[in-house]
């Protein structure tokens, strides 16, 4: 077990390093002069030259990448004219747009993304596992047919459609809910929840379709296993068959998928954040892409990648713990 963790951790570090290198090189080699972008549209060639020097953009790429890594681990100093800007340890550089520290920008936007992720996860787990179990246990009935179609429709809907429809119905026509505008949890918990409700439902319901399908197929598969037949042949009632013998194996892949999804949602809930105007990391990414703010884009991609890699290790461990037949290797 310990060697397994050690090996996976080393592997994760390697993956994140390779990933960050690839991302870094791709973005800084790409056409479009970073110095010009950093300097802004009204710069003269001399100013651009200064910025180039400042950012050490004439160094070989590997050296630049090394500085980038150094910045992440030890922090870095930037000279802006006469003043020196210090960028603290997890330093991903300064934004081209406003010279703000990228790390600060990310930290600023984390609460909105985290609020969305946690709330939506609660929705999709409750709804997804519930409908999945229900349709597995009511096989062949009308309930199953309705649920099957609902989940199919759910998997076929992008969040910007469900979001738009929800907005139209609940905000524009029924006027039950405010148009979402993010209020931090620390400011006003009630308003926070009230405003997050639509994003949670929009994202959570769609994701729950995937979870319902997975829960259903995994439950059916488990119920078809021989050991279930044994307990049925010994007169164990169906309810305890499911609760005591099927559920654990059936939910193992669901738990693992949750962990994996939770990792990717930190960078990946882009659509939902854009749809509802949530000031999260996804929104930051889209804005930075439009303004070609390279340090921010690189930071978001690298951090998301790291989150996903870690989440997947967690997922594998959870899966193995839940389903003991899978050995960690």
């Amino acid at each position: 077990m310990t060697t397994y963790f050690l090996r996976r951790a080393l592997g994760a570090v390697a993956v994140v390093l390779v990933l960050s290198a690839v991302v870094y090189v791709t973005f800084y080699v790409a056409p479009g002069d970073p110095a010009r972008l950093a300097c802004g549209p009204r710069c003269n060639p001399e100013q651009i030259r200064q910025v180039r020097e400042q950012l050490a953009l004439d160094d070989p790429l590997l050296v630049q990448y090394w500085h980038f890594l150094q910045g992440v681990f030890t922090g870095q100093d930037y000279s802006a004219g006469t003043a020196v800007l210090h960028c603290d340890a997890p330093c991903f550089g300064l934004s081209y747009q406003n010279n703000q520290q990228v790390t600060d920008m990310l930290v600023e936007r984390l609460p909105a993304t985290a609020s969305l992720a946690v709330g939506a996860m609660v929705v999709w787990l409750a709804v997804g596992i519930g409908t999945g179990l229900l349709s597995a246990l009511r096989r062949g009935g009308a309930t199953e047919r309705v649920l099957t179609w609902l989940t199919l429709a759910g998997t076929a809907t992008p969040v910007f459609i469900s979001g738009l429809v929800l907005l139209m119905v609940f905000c524009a026509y029924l006027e039950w809910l405010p148009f979402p505008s993010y209020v931090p949890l620390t400011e006003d918990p009630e308003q926070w929840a009230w405003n997050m409700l639509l994003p949670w439902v929009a994202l959570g319901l769609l994701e729950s379709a995937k979870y319902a399908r997975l829960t259903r197929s995994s439950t059916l598969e488990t119920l078809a296993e021989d050991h279930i037949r044994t307990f049925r042949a010994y007169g164990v009632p169906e309810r305890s068959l499911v609760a005591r013998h099927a559920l654990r194996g059936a939910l193992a892949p669901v738990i693992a998928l949750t962990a994996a999804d939770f990792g990717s949602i930190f960078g990946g809930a882009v659509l939902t954040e854009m749809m509802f105007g949530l000031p999260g990391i996804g929104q930051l990414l889209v804005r930075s892409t439009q303004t070609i703010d390279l340090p921010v884009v690189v930071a978001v991609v690298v951090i998301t990648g790291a989150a996903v890699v870690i989440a997947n290790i967690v997922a594998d461990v959870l899966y193995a713990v839940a389903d003991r037949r899978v050995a960690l290797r």
Partner: protein
Amino acid sequence: MTADLQPLVSVTDLSVAFPSEGGVVRAVDGLSFELAPGGALAIVGESGSGKSTAAYALLGLHRGTGAEVTGSVRVAGHDVSAADDAELRRVRGGAAAMVFQDPLSSLDPYQAIGDQIAEVHRVHRPGASRRDARARAVEVLGRVGIPDAARRARSRPHEFSGGMRQRALIAMALACEPRLLVADEPTTALDVTVQAQILDLLRELRAETGMGLILVTHDLGVAAGSVDDLLVMKDGRAVERGPVRTVLDAPDETYTRDLLAAVPRVNVRRTVLRKPTGVGSSGGPSGGPSDNTALLEATGLRREFGRGKRAVTAVDGVSLTVRAGETVGVVGESGSGKTTLGRMLVRLLEPTGGELRYRGRDIGTLRERELRAFRSELQMVFQDPVSSLNPRRSIGESIADPLRAAGKLGDAEIVARVRELLERVGLDPGAYHRYPHEFSGGQRQRVGIARALAPEPRLIVCDEPVSALDVTTQAQVVRLLGELQRDLGLALVFIAHDLAVVRQVSDRLVVMRGGRIVEEGPADSVYEQPRDPYTQGLLAAVPLLEPAGAAA
């Protein structure tokens, strides 16, 4: 109890039909039988005879599966076919308990074995406390011969060996003191020595508790020593039924007689097929090594799987010589390394150590490309008749494959040769364009043999070639292999777990255990005077049809 006066089990005109894509499959068709309290009945038959389906019906296990069940089934005073769900649950485990074939998958992998038994106990004894149920679990585990039962009750199934798991499953059956035990192929997944122990246990428990036993098995030998009555089934119907000795010694029906004739006997010398005179080929299969040219020579052959601490040595220093035209039988229990050895001999696997010489040339270390020159001379017949043929290609094309790869013959010649081969293995030469799913297991195995023969090899390794087949088909395929070996002067390596089958074909015998050879010698002398204690135990564990042997 008045129930004791009635039969324990009474089945009348039972039919079970499964709706399927191609129409309704009638698995059991008008079956009737009875079992007296405390009696023991074996239901025997080949695959597809409906024996397991009939056993499942005793516990109403077809309910809710879509199967159509008609007729009446009464078990210990309960009308299973008419019982409501609550009554059926009382019958299951309470009146009649079932033991399944595969003990690993039949137990919940996540829970301690003791807890699983305790759970079943509490279902049928609602008054029992958790502690009582746990105590009962430990008690029955001890009863079935699990050492240190109190501690082992906390283990999960994967921490048990195959035999121990089957004991645990039997313990679960005992937990609620049922009046009937239904055992569906309880020893089929087990090695022969473990099988003998489990059968002994069943006999003891029956004598002690007085419960009735219905034993479903394909193996007449297993049935012979374990029950009082025998019911022979074929195509869902009862063919013959009577006291076990009567049916075995003086069967009324031709089908039973054929079945008995096909059962290989471990205590009978093989009938040597004499070579027709005038066929000039080196090496006689009969008299042993008259010709000493070694065809294939393995010296200290090793094979490991995995690396580092997890490495497992499957074959550990095996030295073996196969001479031209002889048949070497390789027997061993599961995990003995016999299959790995066989795959190395034809170089489907690369040895990790040792030397493998074919006609003096070292082929053990050759790479795939360099091996091609030898491929045609070393062939293999595989165990599984389903996976050994590509379902997407006609059997003719499968057989033609080595000929086409060699590229020596033209298209017309290849087709002619394939037709000839099909005929040679007892199939219709016109079947060239038919697909594997149109054939039965035995026929597919014949196709596999024809494919192995196509490149005119000198040696064929047969890896459990008949273990997936029914006993009558088994006999036919074994006979075919014997004929081919005699007529073509082939060398055969015959790998099997079934000692009786191996005896029917082997000149020499190799007994393997844990990756090593424990005994080797001329077949008859090994079978009749085994020197190694392991071989002796193995031979003693083989269930015999004849009562004299059963006592041994």
